[in-house]
């Protein structure tokens, strides 16, 4: 609005002028008449001295505080506000503009005689030749200013009401005179300004006794004043008194002022209704000599009445009149008729602008925001249309200048209206349409937006204005004095210069013209502050970006950095992924930073711009090492930049993997660091000087230095370079003065290594590292710091590792990857240090044997570096475990207790301190175990290291104890023929005396006299041990059965008599025979009796010396299944004796068949010997044997084997002999039952079809 003439657009407020006080007030009346009117001005002057009392000042101050000229233009608290006055102070006099203009000199009136005298008009009217509007102008700012600044509606005169009775009358009279004087002057001037008088009482409490009312009345009457225009103001003590009086006074005065403006409005309406165009004082002689048309006059009158209505705050009336004026102005009768070259054209445009602004203000006053915006838009379109049709078109800088101005005007109007809904705190961006406009189709823009938008719009049009200006040909830009007249004439018709400079001023050839950039920046800065107030940070950033572009054009690089740096740093464009915006920002800042010489910023920007996310700029070096080239001034100190993670869009991404989810303290874990560069392809390879990986706990940080021929061999394939870094422990505080940035981050121990750290764009650098673990706990790979050090700068980029579910790739080689399975590859659980104590059994027997005392020796070896305080727990677990004893050297032995049936244990046996690398032996002894069984033996050593007494470390060893039977045996009980004869029933010796009682043990002490039987027990035993065992003795134990019979045994074994025993190898069968003789105590008892025998084997382990100690001999007892002896059934026993025939090689065999009848019956047996080809025999071929009860008889055959199967070639070879089968059948005659012939003796055996007899061969005979 500043470009419009002062006062032309201001809101009009009733004008009150005070007279008669000193002017040392904030608002002196300083309006100055135009020079043309100065000498005709009407002077209104008060003769009395101006007041300078405190009271007067207080009153004036109070009034000025309520001056309404700067109040917001809205009708909100109209009800509360009782008055609205523009108050100015004049000291003693004021100048009023002349009511009538003089006829200027030199103008000759037309023939005076017949014509009526010249009618004189106001100097502001187009009728007066002195007016700039003469003869055909419409109306101008002068007129508005006349009413706003020059001609008050009320003239308020200050006087003192003197309380001194001696002076009272004199002063009262002076006042009367002065007021009358003023009134007369005003009356002469022709203005209808109201005159009001305020009397300042100097008396504290005016009492009726002083006759004050009378005095007032006298003054009023003497001055001819309206009673309500005379005010008495009490002294300002207390101040409330004064304020109340002032408030009343101003309210009254306001109504008077409104009345004044109503009169004026009525006057102009009356003039309009006359319907004729008044004639000017002097007919125009110059120019077109055209006078203002009636339609023009109507515009003028409408405008006037609208302004007067505005004074009265009748905004609806004002709006109507303004609209009427506007329509008329743009109608075909007014503006259409004005030629565009005429100055009146621009005046008319100006008037249209003023009217439109005032219309919009009226609408805003009434809260019709959308209507106001539409009005704004409408005016723009009307004027555009008009300019296009009648003027110079809208495609030039002038039009855009106006557009920009028009947008700014709207912003100002909105600001002035001070709409409460737009307060920044409401965060509203636009207002909803008022009720009347709701439901209509509205342009979005027609919802009134806050001023930021308007300023931005203005900036946009200023851009266009500049573009148009720049597009002007040089010929137009030349100053008119330099260019040919034709050119000047031509350009005058081409360019719209309404309220903007001529082309040669807008964009002159050789000097700077209008600073468009500055204009744009101004608008944008204002817009930006508005956006920021309403938290439109991103929108503000957009404005800032535009602004920076302008500043860049103006080469205000510092400004650019100031503007963009906060945005670049703080706004979330980067994090949110608005890459294109970041790119714009980066390049803008890069240019500015390079110009300013801010090396660190340049480095930051170049680093970020390396990222492939941004579009590649051709011809850019993309080499961070070159970024500081050409930066002037050279930075004084070496720039050092530290970039935190996420601060920039890093083109380097890093991931870290632990191969395993767990590791153990004291061991090392494999890990892989992968650094990927996504820099622009073609960018220079980046050589990192070092990198540092840090972990949050328990793992040392790792530093890897760049080394071209690193110790690790690099494997390169495709986009991947894989190298293995050998890490060495390095104490930072040892003599290695390296003042790099690495040291400060880490105190204490770190691991370091070296590798080739050249990072090629698009490639990945994979580093394999074995990280030694020291302390147990959870650890996590935290961050990576990349260091880039060069002669010109230091750069340090931190990256934080993030877990990604899909990218946990482990590079097996440069070409092959595999997915690491554990879900958190960044985390590592370091388990406690594994025990280094070892429990072992140096002589472990795979098998233990039953009936053997087991003694096991264990060694506990301390593999730790220091001595360890140890305890031992032993558990034996199995079915009915035996109690065991533990012997520790130098301590008492401990015996186990069994807490449960299947467990026997010994807990917390102190082993004492075991020195490092030393061994402690303990012996575990178990008693002989009878049954073969299986036990789990658990030895658990728990120990503490003196360095860490709080952490118990335990080592457990489990052994499996197998107890097996070393021997198994089978048995044969073979009958033999007892040589002694059976006792006879009839032999009295054989008859036992009758027992005295029924005591069965009675026989035991008697010599047995019953039947005897002879048996041979053959045992075959085998060792089932896993190793050879030495058997020292073998025997049988006959369980006594005293009642039944008496039994004796004779042993026949091959064991040496010395007792040294025989070594029995596993799985070999050994035989031992025992002859048994059993005899019943009496003949009467012949019943079957059981025989319980067990085999006892005495053995030792072969490695022990059998003679050394007898305790080493173990005895294994094998129970022999029960045999049955005796019985009453008859049995046939066959035995044979061989008797070689001398002189022949033949053998005769004597086969003796013994038939025993132990029954009580008389039995008859038939014997039949079948002839055989195998032998010849002598003896009864067929005979019958009668056996008495309890008797036995024998039959003898002599056999001569006939052929030697050796000779026939079919024998078993070697001539030892062969078996023949005599076909002897023994038949019980009575029962007709064939009895089995039982082999009873050597050389007879039971065959399939009867018994067989051994025939010794040649050798057998010879032997």
């Amino acid at each position: 609005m500043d470009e419009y003439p002062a006062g032309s657009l201001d809101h009009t407020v009733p004008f009150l002028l005070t007279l008669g006080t000193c002017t040392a007030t904030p608002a002196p009346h300083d309006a100055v008449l135009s020079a043309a009117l100065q000498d005709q001005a009407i002077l209104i002057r008060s003769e009395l001295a101006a007041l300078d009392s405190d009271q007067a000042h207080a009153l004036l101050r109070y009034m000025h505080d309520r001056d309404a000229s700067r109040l917001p233009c809205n009708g909100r608290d109209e009800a509360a506000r009782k008055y609205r006055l523009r108050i100015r102070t004049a000291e003693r006099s004021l100048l009023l503009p002349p009511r009538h203009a003089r006829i200027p000199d030199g103008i000759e009136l037309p023939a005076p005689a017949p014509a009526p005298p010249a009618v004189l008009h106001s100097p502001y009217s187009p009728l007066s030749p002195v007016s700039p509007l003469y003869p055909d102008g419409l109306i101008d700012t002068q007129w508005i200013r006349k009413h706003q600044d020059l001609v008050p509606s009320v003239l308020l005169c200050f006087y003192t009401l003197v309380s001194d009775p001696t002076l009272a009358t004199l002063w009262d009279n002076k006042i009367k005179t002065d007021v009358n004087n003023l009134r007369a002057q005003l009356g002469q001037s022709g203005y209808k300004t109201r005159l009001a008088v305020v009397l300042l009482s100097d008396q504290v409490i005016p009492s009726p006794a002083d006759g004050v009312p009378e005095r007032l009345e006298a003054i009023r009457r003497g001055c001819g004043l309206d009673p309500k225009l005379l005010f008495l103001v009490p002294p300002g003590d207390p101040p409330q008194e004064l304020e109340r009086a002032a408030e009343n006074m101003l309210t009254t005065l306001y109504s008077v002022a409104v009345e004044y403006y109503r009169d004026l409005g009525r006057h102009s309406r009356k003039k309009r209704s006359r319907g004729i165009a008044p004639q000017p004082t002097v007919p125009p002689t110059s120019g077109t000599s055209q006078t203002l048309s009636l339609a023009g006059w109507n515009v003028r009158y409408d405008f006037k009445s609208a302004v007067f209505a505005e004074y009265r705050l009748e905004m609806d009336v004002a709006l109507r009149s303004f609209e009427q004026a506007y329509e008329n102005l743009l109608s075909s009768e007014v503006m259409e008729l004005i030629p565009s070259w005429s100055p009146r054209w621009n005046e008319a445009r100006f008037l249209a602008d003023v009217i439109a602004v005032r219309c919009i203000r009226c609408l805003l006053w009434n809260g019709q925001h959308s209507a106001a915006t539409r009005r704004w838009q409408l005016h723009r379109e009307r004027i555009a249309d008009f300019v296009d049709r009648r003027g110079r078109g809208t495609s030039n800088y002038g039009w855009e200048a106006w557009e920009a101005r028009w947008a700014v005007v709207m912003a100002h109007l909105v600001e002035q209206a001070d709409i409460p809904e737009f307060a920044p705190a409401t965060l509203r961006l636009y207002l909803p349409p008022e009720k009347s406009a709701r439901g209509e189709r509205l342009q979005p823009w027609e919802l009134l937006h806050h001023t930021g938008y308007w300023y931005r719009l203005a900036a946009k049009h200023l851009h266009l204005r500049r573009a148009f200006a720049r597009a002007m040909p040089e010929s137009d830009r030349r100053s008119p004095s330099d260019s040919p007249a034709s050119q000047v004439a031509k350009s005058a018709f081409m360019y719209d210069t309404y309220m903007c400079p001529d082309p040669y001023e807008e964009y002159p050839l050789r000097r700077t013209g209008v600073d468009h950039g500055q204009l744009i920046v101004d608008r944008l800065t204002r817009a930006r502050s508005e956006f920021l107030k309403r938290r439109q940070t991103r929108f503000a950033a957009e404005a800032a970006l535009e602004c920076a572009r302008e500043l860049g054009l103006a080469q205000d690089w510092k400004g650019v950095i100031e503007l963009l740096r906060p945005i670049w740093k703080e706004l979330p464009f980067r994090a949110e992924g608005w890459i294109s915006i970041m790119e714009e920002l980066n390049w803008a800042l890069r240019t500015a930073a390079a110009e300013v010489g801010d090396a660190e910023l340049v480095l930051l920007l170049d680093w970020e711009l390396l990222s492939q996310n941004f579009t590649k700029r051709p011809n850019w070096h993309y080499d961070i090492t070159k970024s500081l080239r050409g930066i002037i001034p050279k930075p004084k100190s070496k720039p050092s930049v530290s970039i935190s993670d996420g601060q920039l869009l890093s083109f380097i991404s890093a991931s870290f993997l632990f191969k395993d989810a767990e590791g153990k303290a004291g061991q090392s874990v494999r890990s892989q660091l992968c650094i990927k560069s996504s820099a622009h392809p073609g960018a220079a390879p980046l050589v990192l000087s070092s990198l540092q990986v840090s972990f949050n706990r328990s793992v040392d940080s790792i530093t890897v230095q760049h080394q071209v021929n690193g110790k690790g061999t690099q494997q390169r394939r495709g986009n991947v370079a894989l190298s293995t870094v050998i890490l060495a422990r390095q104490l930072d505080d040892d003599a290695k003065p390296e003042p790099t940035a690495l040291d400060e981050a880490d105190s204490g121990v770190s691991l370091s290594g070296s590798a080739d750290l050249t990072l090629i764009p698009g490639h990945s650098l994979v580093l394999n590292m074995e990280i030694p673990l020291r302390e147990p706990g959870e650890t996590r790979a935290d961050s990576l710091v990349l260091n880039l050090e060069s002669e010109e700068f230091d750069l340090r980029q931190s990256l934080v590792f993030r877990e990604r579910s899909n990218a946990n790739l482990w590079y097996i080689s440069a070409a092959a990857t595999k997915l690491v399975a554990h879900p958190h590859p960044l985390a590592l659980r370091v388990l406690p240090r594994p025990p280094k104590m070892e429990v072992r059994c140096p002589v472990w027997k795979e098998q233990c044997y039953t009936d053997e005392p087991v003694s096991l020796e264990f060694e506990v070896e301390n593999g730790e570096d220091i001595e360890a305080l140890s305890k031992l727990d032993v558990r034996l677990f199995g079915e009915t475990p035996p109690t065991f004893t533990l012997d520790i050297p130098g301590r008492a032995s401990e015996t186990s207790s069994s807490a449960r049936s299947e467990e026997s244990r010994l807990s917390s046996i102190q082993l004492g301190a075991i020195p490092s690398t030393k061994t402690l032996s303990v012996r575990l002894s178990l008693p002989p175990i009878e049954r073969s069984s299986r036990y789990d033996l658990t030895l658990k050593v728990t120990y503490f290291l003196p360095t860490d007494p709080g952490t118990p470390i335990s080592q457990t060893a489990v052994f499996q104890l197998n107890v097996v039977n070393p021997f198994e045996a089978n048995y044969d009980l073979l009958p033999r023929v007892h040589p002694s004869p059976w006792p006879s029933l009839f032999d009295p010796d054989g008859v036992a005396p009758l027992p005295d009682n029924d005591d069965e043990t009675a026989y035991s002490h008697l010599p047995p006299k019953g039947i005897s039987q002879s048996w041979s027990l053959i045992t075959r035993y085998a060792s089932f041990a896993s190793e050879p065992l030495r058997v020292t003795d073998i025997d049988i134990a006959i369980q006594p059965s005293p009642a039944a019979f008496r039994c004796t045994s004779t042993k026949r074994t091959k064991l040496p008599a010395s007792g040294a025993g025989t070594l029995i190898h596993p799985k070999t069968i050994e035989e031992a025979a025992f002859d048994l003789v059993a005899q019943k105590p009496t003949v009467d008892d012949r019943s079957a009796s059981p025989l319980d025998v067990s085999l006892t084997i005495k053995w030792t382990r072969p490695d022990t010396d059998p003679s050394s100690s007898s305790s080493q001999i173990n005895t294994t007892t094998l129970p022999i299944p029960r045999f049955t002896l005796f019985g009453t059934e008859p049995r046939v026993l066959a035995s044979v004796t061989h008797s070689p025939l001398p002189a022949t090689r033949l053998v005769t065999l004597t086969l003796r068949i013994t038939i025993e009848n132990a029954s009580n019956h008389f039995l008859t047996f038939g014997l039949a010997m079948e002839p055989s080809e195998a032998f010849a025999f002598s003896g009864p071929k067929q005979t019958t044997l009668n056996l008495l009860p309890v008797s036995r008889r024998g039959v003898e055959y002599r056999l001569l084997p006939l052929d030697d199967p050796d000779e026939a070639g079919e024998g078993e070879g070697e001539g030892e002999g062969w078996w023949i089968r005599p076909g002897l059948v023994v038949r019980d005659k009575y029962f007709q039952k064939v009895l089995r012939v039982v082999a009873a003796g050597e050389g007879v055996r039971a065959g399939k079809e009867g018994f067989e007899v051994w025939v010794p061969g040649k050798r057998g005979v010879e032997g």
Partner: protein
Amino acid sequence: MATTVPSIACLGVIGRNNNPLHTSVFPSYDPTTNSFRPVRTPLQFSLIISSTLDVFELRSRHNTAAGTGLTGDFGLLHAIDDRLAAYGFETNTGTRFVAIVDMRGRRLDPAAAAAMADKRLAGAAAGLREGEMRPVFKAMQVAYIRLLQNPFFEPDEHSPPAGQGGAKITSRKFGQDVRRIGENWAPGVAVL
């Protein structure tokens, strides 16, 4: 003034993390050259779309305070200038659709203009009613839902639940859908 009607100049999808997911730019009628071309550069559209985030934030703060805005339709976000205006919609999952409308984006050919005048629809040239953008958002939501139904589309990749940024939507089908919506919309079109 040539008769012009509004058209869509740009459609944008913004993810939950304020990250751009998709942007489609549509050409507008340019009366000076009598041709169609985008009114702004992609960068400018990017700025415009990102600046709507401010409004989304303001508005959702206001909505939570007032307990309104449950439909997700934010209506007019703001007018960018006297030609472009941004409208917005937010889904329940925080994905936001932005439509930048060019109020003078299409030329009305005279015959159609006459026909519209008959039907008293000439007002269509003057502006937009509230709710006339709703079909656009409805259609965009349908397209977006169709995209989400694609088993190969991983929403977390595009708007990580905890984190920043996200990848852009690359689905060709979604792009085609958005293109169709943007090209077919005109004031008064109810179904897209």
